[in-house]
C-alpha cells in the first residue's frame, strides 16, 4: 500500500492511493495479482489516509488473503494495532525485502496515476 501526493499544490490536495496485491517470498515477488487505486482531495490527515487506503484495497479485483503492508511513515508512525482497526484484513508495517519490493510497485503506481490526473 502506498499513498502519493500529501503536499499542497496551488491551494489544493490530490492524494492517490495504490494497493498492490501480490504473493511474495522473503526477498522475491512471486506474482502480482491486482492493483487497486483511489483518489482524494482531502487534507492528508490520518483519517483521510486510512480512508483512501481502505478504498484502494476495496478496488482490488479480489480481497487479498494476506495482511495489508505499508511503510512506517505512511500512517504517521501510528501503532500497528491502531492502524489495523481500519482494515478488514490484518495490517502490519513492512518487514521483508519481498514486501518492500511490492510497496515500491505501489509507489510507482500511485505516483504515475497522480501525474496522469494532473
Amino acid at each position, binding site marked *: 500500500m502506498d499513498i502519493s501526493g500529501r503536499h499542497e499544490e496551488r491551494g489544493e490536495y490530490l492524494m492517490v492511493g495504490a494497493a498492490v496485491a501480490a504473493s511474495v517470498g522473503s526477498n522475491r515477488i512471486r506474482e502480482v495479482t491486482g492493483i487497486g487505486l483511489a483518489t482524494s482531495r482531502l487534507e492528508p490527515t490520518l483519517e483521510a489516509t486510512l480512508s483512501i487506503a481502505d478504498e484502494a484495497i476495496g478496488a482490488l479485483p479480489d480481497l487479498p488473503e494476506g495482511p495489508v503492508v505499508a511503510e512506517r511513515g505512511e500512517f504517521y508512525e501510528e501503532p500497528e494495532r491502531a492502524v489495523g482497526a481500519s482494515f478488514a484484513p490484518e495490517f502490519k508495517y513492512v518487514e*521483508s525485502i519481498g514486501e518492500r519490493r511490492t510497496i515500491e510497485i505501489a509507489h510507482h503506481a500511485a505516483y504515475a496515476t497522480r501525474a496522469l490526473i494532473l
Partner: protein
Amino acid sequence: MNTVIVKRVDEGTADTNEIRDLARAAGYTVLDELTQTRTEDAAYHIGEGKVAELSSLVARTGVETVIFDNRLGPYQIYNIGREIPEDVEVIDRFTLILDIFGQRAQTRKAQLQVELAELRYELPRVDAKVSLAKREEHPGFMGLGEYDESRERDIKSQISRIKEELASIAETEEHRREERRESGFDLVALAGYTNAGKSTLLRRLAADLAVDENEDLHPDLDTTAESEDRLFTTLGTTTRRADMERDVLLTDTVGFISDLPHWLVESFRSTLDEVYRADLVLLVVDVSEPIEEIREKVVTCHDTLYERNEAPIVTVLNKIDAVDEAELEEKRAALSALAPDPVAVSGKEGLNVEALTDRIAADLPPLREERLVLPMAEDTMSLVSWLYDNACVEEVTYDADQVLVEFAARPSVIERSRSKASELTIPESA
C-alpha cells in the same frame, strides 16, 4: 575503562542488553545504567531531572565515560557535559560502534572504511563544534583536533581521498570476484546480525584447506575466521572454500546491527559488496534468542540488504543446539513470513550441516551440461585438465583421434571451454 549506560525510548521499556554488549565489545566495564521513557529533549536528549540523576550517578561511581544508546547532537553532548563531573566523556551509540570498528580494523581497507565513517559522522557537526570550541574546551568530541573554519574543507578533501582509494580497492575486489567466477567458483556470502554465529558456521562449512593463502594475491583470504562470543569480531572478510561437491567459495563478513545510519552503511559498502555481489546469501539467525528479538534482527538484515542485494537468500536458523524441538518449531512458525523455508543448523555442534550444503547446491544458479568432442592435439590434455579444475567433469572417453568430455559448469566456464577447444590445433597427418 568504567562507564554508565543511558538509554531513552519514546515508548515502552528501554532494553539495554545490546548497548551493554557493545560497550563490553569496546572494552568498557558497565557499572550502572539509567533509562527513560519520554520524547526527546532538544537540549539534553533526556529530561533535565534525568540529567541531574545522571550527574550524581557519575559522581558516585567515578566512571570516565557515559554511553548513550541514542544518537546525540553536538549541542546535546556539550550541554550534558556541562552538567556532569568534568573530564567525563559523553559517547553516543554511533561513536561507540565506530570505536569498536576502529579497534577491530586490521586491514588497510577496514581502516579506511572506519576513517571514512568517522569523517562522515563528523562533517555535519563541524559548524556546531567550531562555535562550541570558541566558548570553551570540552571533552567528548572524538578528539579530532582543534576546530576552526578550515576543518570542514579538510574533512571534505580527506573524504574524497579515502573514497578514491576505496574505489580502487573495490575495483580490485570486483576483478577478483570475476576471476573466481570464471574459474568455476560460485560465491556464497554469510550475512546476518552481529554475533549470529556466522564465523563459526563458516569454519564448519569450510574445507580444511584455504583456497589460496598467498597474502600478496589474496589479502582477504585467511586460514581461520574469527569466532568468539563478542560483537563485531569480524570486520573484514574471510573467504574459504566450502567442503562440498560443487566449487563454492564462502565469504564471512561484518555483522549487521540495528539503527545504523545510512552514512555508516555506505562507509562499509565495499565490504558489504561481498554480500551484495554473491550468487547466494546465507542469512544467519541466532534461533536461541526470544522470538521478538529474532524478528527485529531479521528485519534489520532485510533493511540492510534491500537496496542492493540481488542474490537469492536462504535463512539459516543457527544455534539449534541451544533450543529444544518444540521451541524450534514455534520459532520457525512465527518467522514463516520472513523466512518461509529456513534451514536449521548448529554451526558449533555441526548439526544438520549436510542439509545446508544440499540447500546451497540446490539454490545456486544451475550448472549447464556440456559435451565437447576434442581432436587429439598437443594441448588437448591440458584442456581436459583445465576442465577438471574448473567444472564438474562427468565422463571422459578417449579413442584414437579424439577425446569426448561430458561436464557441467557455469555458463562463463562453458564459453571459455568452447573457445579453448576451438583453438586446439589438429596435427597434420603423417
